[in-house]
């Protein structure tokens, strides 16, 4: 992504984070490290954010290098009408986007935990 596009993308991420925190987006968690928002018509599609462990070579302070598993995030925007990815990026390649994508992932995950707890509370006998 070029710099103007990154700014536009981070603005959109900010809006998604805010909407998620306000509970306006219905995220789902198909597995422990992935959150998905199924977007309904008129623009059907889905946003998938997945936390992945990337094996990356890191420099040691004492010199030399070592392979370490680093948590990264995958962001995918899928368009159901064209059956194609409109955005498909990983924070291993776009490290400047990592704080925002991580924040969105965390907001979605916290929201899901919150709704789980709310449901648990609602079924508890008085």
């Amino acid at each position, binding site marked *: 992504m070029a710099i103007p596009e990154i700014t536009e993308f981070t603005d959109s991420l900010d809006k998604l984070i805010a909407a998620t925190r306000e509970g306006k987006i219905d995220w*789902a*968690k*198909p*597995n*422990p*490290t*992935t959150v*998905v928002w*199924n977007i309904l018509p008129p623009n059907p599609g*889905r946003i*998938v954010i*997945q*936390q*992945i*462990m*990337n*094996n990356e070579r890191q420099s040691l302070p004492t010199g030399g290098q070592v*392979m370490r*598993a680093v948590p990264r995030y*995958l962001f*995918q925007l899928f368009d159901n009408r064209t059956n194609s990815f409109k955005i498909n990026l990983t924070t291993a390649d776009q490290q400047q986007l990592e704080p925002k994508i991580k924040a969105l992932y965390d907001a979605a995950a916290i929201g899901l935990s919150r709704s789980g707890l709310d449901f648990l509370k609602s079924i508890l006998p008085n």
Partner: protein
Amino acid sequence: MTNDTEQLQSTVNSVLRVVQQPFYNHPDFWIGLILSMAAIAIGVFGLYYAYMAFKEAGEAKKAANAAGKTVKIQTVTIELTEILQKLGNLQPNIEFSDAWNLLTEIQRRLRRTVSPFQKDADLGDTIAALKEALSAASKALASVRPSDPAKEEMAPLAVYNAIQDNFAAITNIVADLLGLFEKKSINFGDDDGNS
């Protein structure tokens, strides 16, 4: 009485004559010496042949061991080549259960194949790295275990995204191991030729 004395004197004289002659003038000394020498020569000859037989048996054992190792290493290289092909079969749309079966099979075959060599000075570090990569792959796969199998299609690439980096690491390590085993196989062949 006089006769008896003379006879005794004569006997003593004949004994003295025999005793006073040097031992090497006696033919029975030479017969005895020759027989002893022949016995010693036969003994030394026997010892030499026993030593040679022992030495050759040792070398035959060494050659048999080396041949056994060569056959074993060739079996290992064939197995590793097959596993490399399996590792290359990871498809982007793989589902969790298929990935689980694939990883379980790869893990089982790799561990069984390399476990006899884990204390080998040339292979130990690479085998340790392989075990680490296999554990990391299992952990990565467990991180995308579907909470509900019906929801798996919500993120069809999740399994592939989670494990593809680990599979690439395992592939690289297996390729390294294959090279090391092939080198070992060649070395054993040379040893066989030299011995």
